């Protein structure tokens, strides 16, 4: 479903991705871990086709996306959902309008159907009552939840979550991760979650990738990660464990 072959990306003198390779099968939900600035978000943007690698190949459903034109990429992206780190809600639209936006623009659903779906997803993420508020009028955590509702409402086949729980309280983090887990099971979506919520995220993922120095330094199960004696992993877990 998603395959990366020796992906390199450099910003000036800083090599952010230094030969990243891995494969994620259909229906697999993977946690992508790594220290701050290790290139996790950059990697997600490469998979979404928002950035092009300096070298290497990225395959989505068998299609090599780094050489696709904008139009061809649009077709590949149809089944994509992306939760941005900052939410990326449109600040001129209300929460309701933001969540309804992809349905309004990309489907032929009636106004009533869209309304019903939006209310359902907003309730799912605990945002009932915030429909008419603008992103600037709600907290960072609420922005993140509204963005999650917007990302999930189109029932994507591939979902990329860039720190979905950052800025949320532990209870809300857990409920968001549970929501991601249930959507993953229901839709059999393939997904990558960039997160620092360790070990909470291991409740819904069976595989972990650990990014270090621009490379995948660990690829295995959460248990293997927790048992690992690698100094960089021990150091990371010491910093991140909640």
């Amino acid at each position: 479903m998603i395959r990366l072959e020796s992906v390199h990306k450099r910003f000036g003198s800083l090599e952010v991705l230094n030969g990243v390779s891995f494969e994620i099968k259909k229906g697999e939900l993977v946690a992508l871990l790594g220290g701050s600035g290790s290139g996790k978000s950059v990697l997600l943007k490469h998979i979404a086709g928002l950035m092009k690698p300096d070298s290497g190949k990225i395959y989505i459903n068998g299609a090599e996306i780094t050489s696709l034109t904008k139009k061809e990429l649009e077709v590949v992206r149809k089944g994509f959902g992306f939760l941005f780190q900052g939410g990326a809600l449109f600040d001129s639209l209300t929460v309701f309008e933001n969540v309804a936006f992809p349905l309004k623009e990309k489907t032929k659903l009636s106004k009533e159907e869209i309304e019903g779906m939006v209310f359902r997803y907003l309730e799912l993420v605990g945002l009932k009552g915030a429909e008419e508020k603008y992103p600037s009028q709600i907290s960072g955590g609420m922005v993140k939840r509204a963005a999650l509702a917007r990302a999930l409402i189109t029932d994507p086949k591939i979902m990329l979550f860039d720190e979905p729980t950052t800025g949320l309280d532990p209870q809300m983090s857990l409920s968001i991760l549970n929501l991601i887990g249930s959507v993953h099971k229901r839709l059999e979506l393939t997904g990558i979650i960039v997160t620092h919520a360790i070990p909470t995220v291991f409740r819904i993922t069976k595989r972990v990738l650990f990014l270090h120095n621009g490379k995948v330094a660990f690829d295995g199960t959460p248990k293997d990660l927790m048992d690992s004696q690698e100094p960089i992993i021990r150091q990371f877990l010491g910093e991140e464990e909640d």
Partner: protein
Amino acid sequence: MFIFLLQSLLLCFSPPIKVGLFLRQVRFIGAQSLVVILLTGAFSGMVLGFQGYYSLNRFGSEAFLGPAVGLALIKEIGPVISALMVTGRAGSAIAAEIGIMRISEQIDALELMGLNPLRYLVVPKLLAAILSVPLLTCIFDVIGIIGGYLIGVKLLGVGSGVYFGEMANYVDMKDVLEGLWKSLSFSVIITWVCCFKGYYTGIYTGFGAEGVSRATTQAVVTTSVLILLWDYVMTSLLF
């Protein structure tokens, strides 16, 4: 930069046009620029009235104050100052708005939804400017001519009939069209440069608040210089 303009212009002719966004931009670029256009138009006309009267008076030709004010406003000052005012008021805001959307990943979000950001962010502004800027220029011209009338006729004693009569004799439809063509092309320059600078915030200007601030400054400076440069090119072509 030219590809950006070409893509945006092509999208203007390929539906769907986002009517709601277009109307919002007509209000923002057009209606909300009205006060500044009225003020600058009135004072430009009044200054022209003074300067024109004292210059023409030396040759005993005050009777030509009307055509002097009319031609200067309609062909040159109206289109150029209107465009510069719209650049300062709306162009800077356009660059900042799109720049903030870029750095807060809202443009990436549009792309990931399989939507063309240019259709949502540039086309409505481009069409609104094409409609609004020539209209604002017309208003500027009319208010300027009234300003010149107040100074020339009411204050300095040129005959009212002479002011408007000579203006009617010397100002042709060709002159009016020349001014309108100019303002039409300026409207494209304003939205093209300001949208481009905002859209590529980060790539050419650096990220963060500083990047947006730099993009906005570059947008206003580049647009203003291009307006004056293009004004020269058009004047030399249209004469």
